[in-house]
C-alpha cells in the first residue's frame, strides 16, 4: 500500500471548542430514562429520512429521501440516543457526557421525564460549556407527551438551521480516531475482512491516526502475543491483566462471546474466534489501553477494555454489537469499521459504520448493506493489501462527507446499559509528546 495519498489534510471536519473536529454535524436527541424514550423518538421521527417504499418484489415504487449523498450538502441528521435506566450509574453518566460532546455532534436536546436519576443539569452544563446549542425538556413540567414533542420539534428545527450554516474545514488524518468491531463472525471473518482491517489500521497509524480495537472477551488466548506488542513493559502487564479479567468474567457468566451462529459458520472454539478477531488490530505497536469514555491522547493503536471491573453485577459486559460500538464512539471514534461474515446490517447513531463483508456468499446475498467485499480474497480476485487499501480509501471518503451504506439505509442503532468501571491504571496511556490535539475533559 505504497501509493496512498500524501495530502495530510484531506478530510473535512467541523471544529469544536475542545480542539477536536467532527466528520458529521448531528443533532442528538437523548432520552434520559426509558419513560422519556417515546417522546424523544417521536421528535426524531419528524426529521428521519424515509427509505423508498417497495412493492412485493422489492422494487422501489417511490423516491427515497436520501438524495444528498454528501452529508455537507444535506440538512443535518437528527439521531436518537439515550439511557433506559432510572437508577443512577456513573458509567452511563460518563457515556452520555462523552457522546453528547462527541465531535460528530453539533447540538443536543435532552428529554427527561423529571424523576429519573441521570444528572441532566451536569449534562446540559457540559454541552453548553462546549459551545453547542443545548436544551432540556422535562415532560412532567412541559405539559406531557404532545406539548413536549411539539416543543422538541421546534427546538430541533432551529438547531438544524444553526448547524446547517456551519461549513467544514480541512482536517488531518492525525485528528481522526477510527474504531473496529466484528459481529456475526464466521470462519471467513478471520481470514479476509479482519486482517484487511489490520492492514488499513497500520496505514492509518503510520499517518498519525488513532485506531481502537476492543472485545477483550474475544481476545482470550491472545494476551501474551499482545503483551509482546506493547510499547512499554508496564502496558504489557496491564494488557495481560485486562484479558485475564475478561476470561474470569465470562467464566462466571457461563460462556464467552461465542454465539450459535459462529459455530454454523465453521468456528469451533472461543480461542479460535479470538485469533480471528485479533487480526483486526494489524501489526502496529499497542500504545495504550482505554476504557469506555477515555479519549486516546495521541495517535497509535489502542485496546479498549470493555469488561467491567469488580464482581459481575449487571450481567454480560456487552449484550450486543451496538453496545460496543457506543463505547468506541464514547472514546471519540469518528467512524467504525465493522467486519462481518454471517452478515450484520447494523449502523449507529452519531458515527458512521462501514460494513466490511468477509464471506463472498454473504456479500452476494446482502450487497445492499455491505460497503466492502473482502470475500474477493477467497475467490482469488483481490489480495489482503487490495482490500486494506480499499478500506483506507472508504475511510477517507467518509471523512470527506460520503455516506456509508448503513447511513443511507437509515440505521441509527444505539444501546446503553448498566456497567461499572474503575479508572484506567497507571502506565495505560502514552504521554503526548506535543501539545495534545485531543483534550481529555
Amino acid at each position, binding site marked *: 500500500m505504497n501509493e496512498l495519498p500524501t495530502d495530510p489534510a484531506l478530510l473535512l471536519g467541523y471544529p469544536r471548542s475542545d480542539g477536536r473536529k467532527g466528520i458529521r454535524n448531528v443533532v442528538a436527541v437523548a432520552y434520559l430514562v426509558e419513560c422519556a424514550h417515546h417522546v424523544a423518538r417521536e421528535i426524531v421521527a419528524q426529521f428521519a429520512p424515509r427509505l423508498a417504499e417497495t412493492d412485493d418484489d422489492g422494487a422501489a415504487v417511490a423516491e427515497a429521501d436520501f438524495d444528498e449523498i454528501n452529508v455537507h450538502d444535506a440538512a443535518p441528521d437528527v439521531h436518537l440516543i439515550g439511557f433506559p435506566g432510572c437508577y443512577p450509574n456513573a458509567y452511563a453518566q460518563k457515556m452520555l457526557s462523552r457522546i453528547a460532546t462527541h465531535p460528530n455532534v453539533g447540538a443536543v436536546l435532552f428529554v427527561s421525564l423529571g424523576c429519573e436519576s441521570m444528572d441532566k443539569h451536569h449534562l446540559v452544563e457540559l454541552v453548553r460549556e462546549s459551545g453547542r446549542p443545548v436544551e432540556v425538556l422535562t415532560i412532567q413540567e412541559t405539559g406531557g407527551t404532545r406539548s413536549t414533542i411539539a416543543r422538541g420539534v421546534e427546538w430541533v428545527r432551529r438547531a438544524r438551521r444553526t448547524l446547517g450554516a456551519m461549513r467544514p474545514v480541512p482536517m488531518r488524518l492525525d485528528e481522526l480516531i477510527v474504531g473496529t468491531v466484528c459481529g456475526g463472525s*464466521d*470462519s*471467513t471473518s*478471520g*481470514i479476509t475482512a479482519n486482517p484487511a482491517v489490520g492492514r488499513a489500521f497500520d496505514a492509518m497509524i503510520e499517518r498519525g491516526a488513532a485506531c481502537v480495537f476492543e472485545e477483550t472477551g474475544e481476545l*482470550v*488466548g*491472545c494476551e501474551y*502475543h499482545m503483551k509482546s506488542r506493547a510499547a512499554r513493559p508496564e502496558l504489557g502487564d496491564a494488557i495481560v491483566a485486562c484479558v485475564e479479567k475478561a*476470561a474470569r468474567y*465470562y*467464566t*462466571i*457468566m*457461563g*460462556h*464467552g462471546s*461465542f*454465539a*450459535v451462529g459462529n*459455530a454454523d*459458520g*465453521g468456528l*469451533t*472454539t*472461543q*480461542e*479460535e474466534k479470538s*485469533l*480471528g478477531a485479533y*487480526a483486526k488490530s494489524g501489526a502496529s505497536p499497542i500504545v495504550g489501553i482505554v476504557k469506555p469514555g477515555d479519549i486516546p491522547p495521541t495517535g497509535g493503536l489502542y485496546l479498549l477494555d470493555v469488561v467491567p471491573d469488580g464482581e459481575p453485577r449487571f450481567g454480560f459486559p456487552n449484550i450486543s454489537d451496538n453496545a460496543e460500538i457506543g463505547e468506541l464512539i464514547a472514546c471519540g471514534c469518528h467512524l467504525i469499521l465493522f467486519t462481518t*461474515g454471517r452478515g450484520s446490517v447494523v449502523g449507529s447513531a452519531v458515527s458512521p459504520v462501514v460494513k466490511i463483508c468477509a*464471506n463472498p*456468499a454473504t456479500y452476494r446475498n446482502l450487497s445492499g448493506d455491505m460497503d466492502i467485499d473482502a470475500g474477493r480474497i*477467497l475467490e482469488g480476485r483481490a489480495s489482503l493489501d487490495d482490500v486494506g487499501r480499499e478500506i483506507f480509501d472508504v475511510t477517507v471518503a467518509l471523512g470527506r462527507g460520503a455516506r456509508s451504506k448503513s447511513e443511507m439505509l437509515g440505521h441509527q442503532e444505539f444501546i446503553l446499559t448498566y456497567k461499572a468501571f474503575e479508572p484506567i491504571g497507571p502506565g495505560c496511556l502514552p504521554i503526548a509528546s506535543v501539545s495534545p490535539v485531543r483534550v481529555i475533559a
Partner: protein
Amino acid sequence: MTLDPRLLLLSADDNCLIAASTLAAGTVLEIEGEAVALASTIALGHKLARRALAAGDKVLRYGAPIGHVTRAVAKGEHLHTHNLESDYLPTYTFDAGHAYVGRDET
C-alpha cells in the same frame, strides 16, 4: 509441496486446513501429497485435519492453539464441535450431544 487451491493454510505450523468454498462429500482433495476423499461435506470456512491427530492433540490455526481434539481424527476429517474442544471456555451450540456447560457443572 503445493497446496490444493480449494484449501487455505493460514500458517506453516498449522495442522488444520480451511475450505475456501463448500466441498461436497466424496470430493477428492490433495492433502500433503496424498489424495483424500471427503467423508462429509465441508462448508466454506470450516476446518479439516491436515494430518491424522490423536485424542488430546492441540489444533493449531494461525500457528496458535485453538483447542484440543477429544478423539482420534483422520487426515481430511471435518474438525468442529463434535471432535474439537476449547481449552478455555465451553462452546454453546444447539446440538444436544454437545450442549452448553453451565457454571454449576464446571
